[in-house]
């Protein structure tokens, strides 16, 4: 996917660009704020990674103009500023996420992936419920009763699959396809691993994942029992 990186520190920009290019993304790298703002006007991106302190036009200004023009592209802000006198935060200005420098590059990549997936998914606000488990596909948040729990990407995908058709038994192969697609090589053990983790994270919920021996897994709401 196409990513716009706006970063004036050469060392940092280089590393970010390389990392994303290594995972198959196309990265346009701009070092000047004003020229970046112009490019955004006529190019469509899957993600914009924006530094705050930039020559020409600062990151917050660019963010404001993006949102003002009604562009909903995901924006991840990188900031080296302390919030000593920031009256408004990046999130208030419409950023989807932010990282404070210095950051872990794996974390940047993971967050970028989440943002791009959320955007390309284009889900409407759909809240799926099964018993006391609620999955909000728009915000990708999961609630067990009052409690919000954090799930990893594949755990969430697994839960989404199960929660969409409560009671239905999914075979391991079916789940493998859903979770990893056809390209990635994964074996049935991986499914057991994710089901195990998901069960642990859903502990305390009335709804639970039942193993149907020889067939696969199903989600049971737990209300009936």
């Amino acid at each position, binding site marked *: 996917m196409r990513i716009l990186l706006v970063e004036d*520190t*050469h*060392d*940092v920009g*280089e*590393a*970010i660009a*390389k*990392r994303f290019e*290594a995972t198959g993304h196309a990265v346009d790298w701009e070092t000047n704020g004003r020229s970046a703002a112009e490019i955004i006007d006529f190019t469509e991106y899957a993600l914009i990674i924006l530094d705050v*302190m930039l020559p020409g036009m600062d990151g917050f200004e660019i963010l404001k103009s993006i949102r003002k023009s009604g562009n909903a592209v995901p924006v991840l802000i*990188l900031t*080296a*500023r*302390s*919030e*000593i*006198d*920031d009256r408004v*935060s990046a*999130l208030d200005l419409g950023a989807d996420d932010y990282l*404070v*420098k*210095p*950051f*872990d*590059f*794996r*974390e940047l990549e*993971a*967050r970028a992936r*989440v943002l791009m997936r959320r955007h390309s998914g284009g889900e409407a606000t759909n809240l799926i419920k099964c018993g006391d488990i609620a999955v909000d596909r728009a915000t990708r948040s999961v609630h*067990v009763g*009052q*409690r*919000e*729990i*954090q799930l*990893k990407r594949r*755990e969430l995908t697994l839960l989404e699959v199960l929660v969409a058709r409560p009671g239905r038994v999914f075979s391991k192969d079916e789940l493998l396809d859903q979770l990893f697609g056809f390209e990635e090589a994964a074996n049935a053990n991986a499914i057991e691993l994710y089901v195990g*983790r998901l069960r*642990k*994270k859903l*502990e305390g919920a009335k709804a639970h994942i039942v193993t149907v021996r020889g067939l696969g897994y199903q989600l049971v709401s737990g209300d009936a029992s």
Partner: protein
Amino acid sequence: MHPEPSAHQPSLFARLARRISLVLGIGAALLVSAAWYYADTAADKAYDRLLVGAALQMAESLAVEDGKLSVRLPASAFELLGLADRDRIFYRVIDTNGRTLTGYDDLQDPSPPEGNSDAMRVEEGTYKGEDVRITRATRVLADPAVTGRAYVIVAQTNEARSALTRELTLRATILVIVMSLLAFAGAMLAIRYALQPVEHLGTAVRRRDPHDLTPVSVNVPRELDPFVGSINHFMGRLGERVDLLQRFIADAAHQIRTPLTALTAQIDLLGSGKMSKADRQHFDRVKERTGELSRLTNQLLSHAMVIHRADSVQLEPISLVDVARRAWRAAVPITVDPDIVVSFEAPEDRPFVLGDAVSLREAIVNVIDNALRHGARHRLEVRVSAGETQALVEVEDDGPGIPPEGWEKAMQRFSTSKSHEGSSGLGFAIAQEVAKAHGGSLSFRPRNERGFVVVLTLPLYC
């Protein structure tokens, strides 16, 4: 921290009141003495006239009959003296030969005035143990039978004139007291009025926004101008300092973070290349140390920031759930160990606290970060709850926790059990600093079978 002045200076009002009442008191005493003196003189004059009149009438009544001096005291003279009804009268008539013709012959003869011996004079004297006023009237007789000077001596006790003096003095005193009280009250009102601008100025300075360091613009009398000038000068200097500190922290943040990010970026680039086993080990250590440096830098800047904000940011009502949820999302990395169950729990009724959202988020982020780094093995729970007067943010993990004897130390800056391991550094110190600035506290709960809990307690806003 308000150092009490060791000896409190009496208020301006009290000082002025004391001085004015002293002056008024002395003035009143002088006026009363003067009133008494004039009353005494006036009473004496009035009654002396009567006395002199009576003496003259009596002297006038002396006549020579059959060659002898005879006295026929006129009733009118006694009526005149009878005006002072409680006083007693003594008289003595002395004939030309100096013998007492009638009356009390032991009534002393007032010494004749020098020079003109016939002039009427009234003098103080005593008779039968009482204070009296005495006068003598002279009658010059030129009868062939009796020639020479005859005298009439009249004395009168002092009761009536003393009574008159007393009454006049009393009335004058009442007037003086009333006037003094009026003057005092008027002066107090005037002082209060005159001191009002001082009060206004105090209120204006007190009511200021703590981070408003612009000059005070209150209309004050000319006398207070130097005072206001000093306040403004001081504010100006303080403002410069605050700005300087703020700029310094902001600059430091940017100047340190940018190369540090570049460093981590280059390390990240290196990491994807091939290297020998020994090189890989060194590389991993460099990477680890850089991570520590990054974290410490963030904590130092964050610490400076919360301390600065504690003094300069106005607190406002904020939803603790929103702040804690943002902190939770920011503090838990996506790349966290997938075997750790991370959850966030909040009540339906959203507790509000009076606070600075940035500082509070920083505090909660640091507590969660600590739990992730040093505690949580399989579980990390963040809970927000509200009691009657307090709101709580609890961070629970299933790690080993901190034993009670280490609690105090954990709150100190750069405390750590083993200095070479990633220290808890400033995390708890930041959280505690923020809690204090919000009138709350940071505390620990002893490790039980579920886990170890760090509690941030804040007063509820309602």
